[in-house]
């Protein structure tokens, strides 16, 4: 199995083999972060730009650390300190950046398809680090990696994804990724936060969290996407916290060895209680740790692909 794609734009376009190649490669890279000297020379001389039009703590840091541990050079650009505020279009920004010969541009944008447009325009490899409510492929891949690491398999698992599904690029990418395997995916949230015709993606829809978590191997919690107007889809945040916040009592209905995931940032006391977020079933910080290994693997595969 060889990697041939120039860009990583969406999980939907990946084959199962490609997903497995990324996960297998990430396994080999994970060990580097545990060393005393956390650096290998693999991507020496490669330049990687992170171009973020939306706020980020984890994803951006994770990409930068991944690139630096592989000896690539990284440059970070945030929209509010770039020429975007002077009115430059994304296409022009992209073309100007390309003139400086970066090998990879990692982009996050509130507009779905923005990374795709850059990918068509530029010769550099483009990685989608989240485009609006569309996809967040690297998050789904690190989630899959964490599930595989904790459960030893992906096939045969029941995964409950709970929260603001309609606005969640994490949910969308995870559904596409999980459905490449033999999994049962249940999406749960208030009716207003579940997109119509969800079932067509091969998932089950449940409006009661108490039913969604029954026999779950994995529970994935999502925050309300306030920046995409999520709050106006529910009567009140307090009511949402009561009805859809994950509490310890819910875990008793799930499998004994259930794991609780959250892509971050968490809103404690709303979609997840402190005792669950910090409890023994939580793998939330493992997800962050694995994110670096998965992004190292993706950078390695994209920059070394057959041309």
């Amino acid at each position, binding site marked *: 199995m060889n990697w041939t794609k120039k860009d990583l734009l969406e999980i939907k376009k990946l084959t199962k083999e490609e997903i497995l190649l990324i996960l297998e490669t990430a396994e080999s890279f994970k060990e580097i972060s545990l060393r005393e000297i956390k650096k290998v020379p693999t991507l020496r001389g490669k330049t990687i730009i992170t171009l973020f039009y939306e706020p980020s703590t984890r994803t951006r840091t994770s990409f930068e650390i991944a690139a630096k541990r592989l000896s690539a050079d990284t440059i970070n650009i945030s929209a509010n300190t770039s020429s975007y505020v002077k009115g430059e279009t994304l296409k022009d920004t992209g073309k100007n950046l390309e003139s400086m010969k970066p090998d990879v541009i990692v982009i996050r944008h509130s507009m779905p398809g923005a990374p795709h447009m850059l990918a068509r325009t530029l010769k550099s490899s483009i990685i989608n680090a989240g485009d609006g409510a569309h996809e967040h492929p690297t998050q789904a891949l690190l989630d899959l990696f964490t599930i595989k690491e904790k459960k030893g398999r992906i096939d045969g698992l029941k995964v409950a994804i709970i929260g603001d599904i309609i606005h969640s690029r994490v949910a969308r990418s995870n559904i596409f990724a999980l459905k490449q395997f033999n999994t049962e995916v249940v999406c749960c949230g208030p009716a207003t936060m579940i997109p119509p015709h969800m079932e067509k993606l091969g998932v089950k829809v449940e409006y009661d969290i108490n039913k969604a978590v029954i026999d779950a191997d994995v529970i994935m919690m999502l925050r309300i996407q306030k920046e995409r107007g999520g709050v106006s889809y529910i009567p009140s945040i307090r009511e949402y916290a009561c009805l859809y916040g994950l509490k310890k009592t819910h875990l008793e209905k799930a499998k004994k060895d259930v794991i609780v995931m959250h892509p971050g940032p968490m809103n404690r006391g709303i979609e997840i209680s402190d005792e669950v977020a910090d409890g023994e079933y939580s793998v939330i910080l493992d997800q962050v740790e694995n994110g670096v290994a998965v992004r190292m*693997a993706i950078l390695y595969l994209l920059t070394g*692909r057959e041309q």
Partner: protein
Amino acid sequence: MKKRVFLDKKAIDRTLTRITHEILEKNEGCDNLCLIGIRTRGVYLAKRIQEKIKKIEKKELPVGILDITMYRDDLSKIKLPVVKKTDISFDINNKIVILIDDVMHTGRTTRAAIDALMDLGRPQKIQLAVLVDRGNRELPIHPDYAGIFYTIDKGEEILVKLKEVDGKDEVIIVGTQ
């Protein structure tokens, strides 16, 4: 395509026995030694040498696995290799590391392996053991222990096959002539 068996199962075993004795002789026993095999076939040779040392010295040396892909100097020129795991579960600081590979050719794999080891710690010494030295070096690197030396002719290829990977132990020379 002509094929000639250069070493058979017994000959490989005898050669490894000699290398083992040379390692023990040069280091005056096996105190402070550890074995690290370069993926893929070096790992199995390392395990065989570990067994032989166990028989002779009654001591079990640690064996580590080194994948040199991340340290290759030709990543931008070749078809992207799959990165496999490096698995060295012991401390190599101040140890004498016996680095083991099946075939030594240009010396570039050894260079990558030395760099990889240096990132993992500061061994007291690194010594190199190979089953086959086929000459044609491109770097000033030389093995401390070599099973056989054979400079191949143009169009020839020397292949090490091991039971654990290839189902059979043999060193063969294939070529058009």
